[in-house]
């Protein structure tokens, strides 16, 4: 028995009945194409999201105040004052030697520039903000420590909001009004994009001290962001922060610590769910394809009973017959798999093109693993559904089979 020769003769048997083979292949083609097209588009979405998350900065932890239920509020009255600037100082004291930390405070403020009016979430920040949040300065400069210590009225604008306020004219050095106060534009941030409904190009930042003094009247923080120096220390740092804050807040857990890893994991979870759904659909198509293969192989065995008898008469063992028909069904499904891979890749890039029109940066990504998986499953279907017909062929009695025509 020679595998290669059996395989080529199986292929020639397939081509001798092209329409029938083609129709039989269809189920496998659809199944494999679905796997590849769907996973390529989901993967594309994932890689876009993950790269955006990474663009926000890596190894970030963010501490935010947690909304308490009324019941909790009543129980905790007077015990905790919420997330404050003092908490930032305490974290800096114990963690700043190896990690970078920055506090953020914010307030919605009406911005006026001549006759243009924008309502924006203005963030009060320190000079450390830019590096940790992974912004880059486009023009001018960022907030500096002198601005913070001197309660200066300076503002740095995101690219999009600066265009909204100033159009084509140069904002640098110009006055704008934040509420009732005049601020000088000292810098424009480089373009950064949007993620999960947050447009990072609409950012407006002023010194944290200025915001607290002029607009908030308190030192409550919106968040504290920590850039951990190594990914594997994320958990440890998070635990340390939690311990510090619990102590300072008299045991009240009115804050939450989220890591970017978690964000990535959430995305991966969603992607995984999608893959399960698509995988299930594709599995159904493959199942139908497999039934088609089994059906046609049973017909083939019946049609070729006398050939089987003859082969047995000239010395084919039952195993040789089994192998021959199994290889034929594998050839059938493998060809279906290959066509499916091609169709799926084309469909995937077609979808990718459409997705890219809808959301910039969303392309289709055909993973080698999904190609292998698709092909592997196609061949698996050939084996699984070819086994019974091949077994049936091998169990024919030579004398009966020879008399069949």
């Amino acid at each position, binding site marked *: 028995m020679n595998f290669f020769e059996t395989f080529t003769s199986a292929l020639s048997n397939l081509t001798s009945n092209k329409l029938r083979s083609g129709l039989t292949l269809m189920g496998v083609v659809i199944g494999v194409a679905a796997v590849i097209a769907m996973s390529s588009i989901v993967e594309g979405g994932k890689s876009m999201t993950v790269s955006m998350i990474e663009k926000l900065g890596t190894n970030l932890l963010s501490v935010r105040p947690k909304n308490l239920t009324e019941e909790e509020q009543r129980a905790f009255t007077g015990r905790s004052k919420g997330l404050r600037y003092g908490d930032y100082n305490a974290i800096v004291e114990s963690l700043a030697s190896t990690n970078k930390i920055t506090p953020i405070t914010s307030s919605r403020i009406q911005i006026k520039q001549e006759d243009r009016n924008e309502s924006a979430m203005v963030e009060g920040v320190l000079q450390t903000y830019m590096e940790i949040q992974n912004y880059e300065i486009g023009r001018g400069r960022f907030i500096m420590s002198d601005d913070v210590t001197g309660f200066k009225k300076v503002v740095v604008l995101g690219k999009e909001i600066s265009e909204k306020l100033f159009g084509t004219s140069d904002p640098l050095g110009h006055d704008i009004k934040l509420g009732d106060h005049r601020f000088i534009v000292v810098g424009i941030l480089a373009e950064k994009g949007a993620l999960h409904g947050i447009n990072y190009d609409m950012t407006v930042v002023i010194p944290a001290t200025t915001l607290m003094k002029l607009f908030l009247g308190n030192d409550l923080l919106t968040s504290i962001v920590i850039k951990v120096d190594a990914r594997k220390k994320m958990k440890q740092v998070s635990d340390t922060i939690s311990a510090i804050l619990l102590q300072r807040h008299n045991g009240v857990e009115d804050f939450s610590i989220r890591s970017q890893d978690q964000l990535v994991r959430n995305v991966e979870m969603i992607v995984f769910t999608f893959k399960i759904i698509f995988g299930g659909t594709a599995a159904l198509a493959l199942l139908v394809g497999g039934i088609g293969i089994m059906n046609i192989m049973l017909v083939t065995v019946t049609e070729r009973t006398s050939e089987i008898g003859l082969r047995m008469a000239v010395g084919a063992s039952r*195993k040789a017959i089994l192998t021959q028909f199994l290889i034929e069904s594998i050839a059938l499904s493998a060809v279906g798999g290959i066509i499916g891979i091609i169709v799926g890749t084309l469909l995937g890039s077609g979808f990718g093109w459409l997705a890219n029109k809808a959301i910039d940066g969303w392309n289709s990504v055909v993973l080698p693993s999904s190609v292998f998986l698709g092909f592997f499953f196609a061949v698996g279907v050939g084996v699984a559904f070819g086994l019974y017909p091949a077994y049936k062929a091998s169990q024919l009695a030579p004398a009966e089979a020879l008399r069949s025509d």
Partner: protein
Amino acid sequence: MGAVAVNALYPIDLAIKQGESVSIVGRSGSGKTTLLYILGCLSLPTSGEYLLDGTSVSSLSDVAMAKIRNQSFGFVFQSFHLLPRQTALQNVALPLFYNGTSKEERLSRAQDALEQVGLSNRGNHLPRELSGGQQQRVAIARALVNRPKIIIADEPTGNLDSKSGDEIVELLLGLNGKGHTVILVTHDTEIAQRLTRKIMIADGKIVQDI
């Protein structure tokens, strides 16, 4: 197909020696083909014993039976049983595929066998491009290719005109002359006369053995 045993043959005592040419004659349904298939190891008797070269066949495994069919027997059938999509040469080479002969040797031996049956220039033709007589000669070449001791022919002339039929019988007798044992089933008594021994079967019993 149920599991009902049909008595196609009644107990028979029969010995065939090497080098004989034996005809088995009888009407259709007489059991002659059943006997032939047992002799050719294509089916096993439900009872009784068949010794081939002194070895009982009933106890052999499927693989061993396949090997015996491959090496000891060459079969010729009434309906030729050629694979329609393979050339004459490929058809002749088929038995060698199942004993691991290299492709080169398969084709050269198949060409030799085609020469023996006078079809050396028809090797690349498909069966449907050949006449009935030529197809049967291809089948004989296939029976020969593995140099078996015994050639078993089941109504080899049944689908042929009398001239082609004669040629086929001549060919088979010639093989017998070269030392192959020939066992031939026919209902044509004239053909049967030309072989050295005639066994007549009726209703599953040997009624004549001369």
